[in-house]
């Protein structure tokens, strides 16, 4: 087993709301090993981006710990923090608003390198920028192009180049390929996987595309309203998933196979999610086809098979007996 690079312990991030608190991330513990990818999936608004941002301290967590190589980084300051900070980058979900519109592509990619003083001289800086752009499929004719002149795919490549320029160990990829068409998506995924292999990079990969997440992840974490409902190795999630929300998610994947056009699907009904002051029990219960009285109690993550965790008393019972 390789070294654990990133770990969170009972991480929480709440946002204030006039009716109470939005429990965006609520008690999440995870581990990502060097050279591995953790795929994070879940309902829109369930807290994936907030989790990613909290790990790299773009949001100050409400409570809990984030460990980088075993060291709690939430209270690091000054030089100590900068040393860790450059090792952790993020590719943002929104390629529109995450790039400064007044900077050209070349300036955008030069900036993180310059701010962090990673190049010894001008020539080296130029060389790093050039090679990073090349790596990300941005030929030099893009040097003086501005974000608004580019289509979404190219903008996303710029975001990727900015993250890679600093040569980090860990990247939070927040839907890096959602805005891309399948061909460019395939190029970027191949690129991310090649880099992982050559640089032993670790990723936290947030996506709604379950085919993509299966393709790229070693482990998958399924979230629902701020909490982890299932956490297991990739094949285990696809072949032996236990939680009813995971089942609903997997059955809703659209497919190009026309014979499956009218297949049976688990369609979720019931109350919409509301993460403001949620009740203590299972948060999926109001929409769960199997909900019972016992779901009103807090659900604990239980290991139902090696490395396969589920937060559902019913699943745990079935696995146990």
């Amino acid at each position, binding site marked *: 087993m390789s070294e654990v690079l990133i770990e969170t312990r009972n991480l929480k991030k709440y946002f204030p709301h006039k009716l109470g608190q939005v429990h965006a991330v609520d008690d999440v513990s995870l581990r990502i090993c060097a050279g591995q990818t953790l795929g994070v999936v879940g309902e829109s608004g369930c807290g994936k981006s907030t989790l990613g941002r909290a790990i790299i301290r773009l949001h100050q967590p409400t409570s809990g710990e984030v460990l980088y190589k075993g060291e709690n980084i939430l209270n690091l300051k000054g030089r100590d923090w900068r040393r860790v900070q450059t090792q952790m980058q993020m590719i943002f979900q929104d390629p529109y608003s995450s790039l400064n519109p007044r900077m050209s592509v070349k300036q955008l990619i030069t900036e993180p390198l310059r701010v962090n003083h990673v190049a010894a001289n001008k020539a080296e800086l130029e060389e790093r920028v050039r090679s990073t752009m090349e790596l990300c499929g941005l030929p030099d004719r893009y040097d003086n192009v501005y974000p608004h002149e580019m289509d979404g795919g190219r903008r996303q490549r710029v975001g990727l180049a900015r993250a890679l320029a600093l040569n980090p160990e860990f990247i939070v990829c927040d839907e890096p390929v959602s805005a891309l068409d399948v061909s460019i998506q395939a190029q970027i995924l191949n690129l991310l996987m090649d880099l992982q292999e050559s640089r032993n990079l670790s990723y936290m990969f947030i996506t709604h595309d379950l085919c993509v997440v299966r393709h790229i992840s070693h482990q998958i974490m399924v979230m629902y309203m701020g909490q982890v409902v299932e956490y297991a190795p990739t094949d285990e999630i696809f072949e032996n998933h236990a939680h009813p929300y995971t089942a609903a998610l997997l059955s809703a*994947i659209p497919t190009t196979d026309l014979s499956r056009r009218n297949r049976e699907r688990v369609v979720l009904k019931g109350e919409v999610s509301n993460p403001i002051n949620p009740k203590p029990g299972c948060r999926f219960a109001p929409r769960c086809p199997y909900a019972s009285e016992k779901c009103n109690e807090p659900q604990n993550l239980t290991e139902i098979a090696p490395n396969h965790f589920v937060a559902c008393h019913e699943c745990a019972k079935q696995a146990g007996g």
Partner: protein
Amino acid sequence: MENLLEIKDLYVNYETDESVVHALNGFTLNVKKGETLGLVGETGAGKTTMCLSVLRLLPEGVSKVEGGSIQYDGKDVLSMNKSELRQMRGAQISMIFQDPMTSLNPVMRVGDQIKEVLSLHNPELSDKQKDERVDDILKLVGISPDRKDQFPHQFSGGMKQRVVIAMALVAEPQLLLADEPTTALDVTIQAQILALMKQLKEKFDSSMILITHDLGIVAEFCDSVAIVYAGEVIETGSIEQVFERTKNHPYTEGLFNCIPDLTSHAARLTPIPGYMADPTNLPTGCKFADRCGRCIDKCRQAAPEMVEVDPGHFVKCNQMEKGGSGL
């Protein structure tokens, strides 16, 4: 069936300081009344430009329609005056933009933004009725009405997208241009929203162009599909015709081959080699020639014509035979 929208041989350029981007190059597309058409194509293929052209919302100064025509409901869009345009955009066509922040006002509460659209379309409703409608539509898109007093930046990416969808749907348009409306959504919410869109579409017999790069969504949700490459439609037909995968444009084939497959464990995906032709410097022949495994001399000399390979199924490739078997 009658065509609601007819785009014929449309040419649109963007002129930047340094170069001219040929975004649409002879773009032809028909949308029937009541039809849902899936529009698929690489980033930069010109999908968004097509929508902006239909709405006459192309950025002023930098863009220019160089040729072709757009007919909406029998009216010539390119010659409409300001008030006709306002009428068309407001009452008949809604667009869901790819970037939700294009349509959202960052300093206005989300509930108020939906309410504003309602006020425009249903001025007869009382304030209380409007509030109820806002709550209803928010619930339908899976957001608790408790959150309507918040601002866009307090919402997740997918929640913003859902607010924009809600705004487009309360307007009850005849034609909905949806530019990648569900890319930021998980599949369960996506399924819910697509079902909702379908319901409303059936209720008002309206049409929709659904731009997406998810071929699964097209297969499950659309009636027909058009594939766009470098500013032109290179294949169009019913879902059955295109997804049967017997007579496809080589580019369409390439698209099918680069989707990660749930059932396979291939370590690497097979992207289509190379990049899309530089839109500032397009080749004279087939624009896909450089990336095509089946390119022959003829392909580099002249642009191929549309061939009707089966009734209603068109492919723009030199190697297709009319009504025949392709390759």
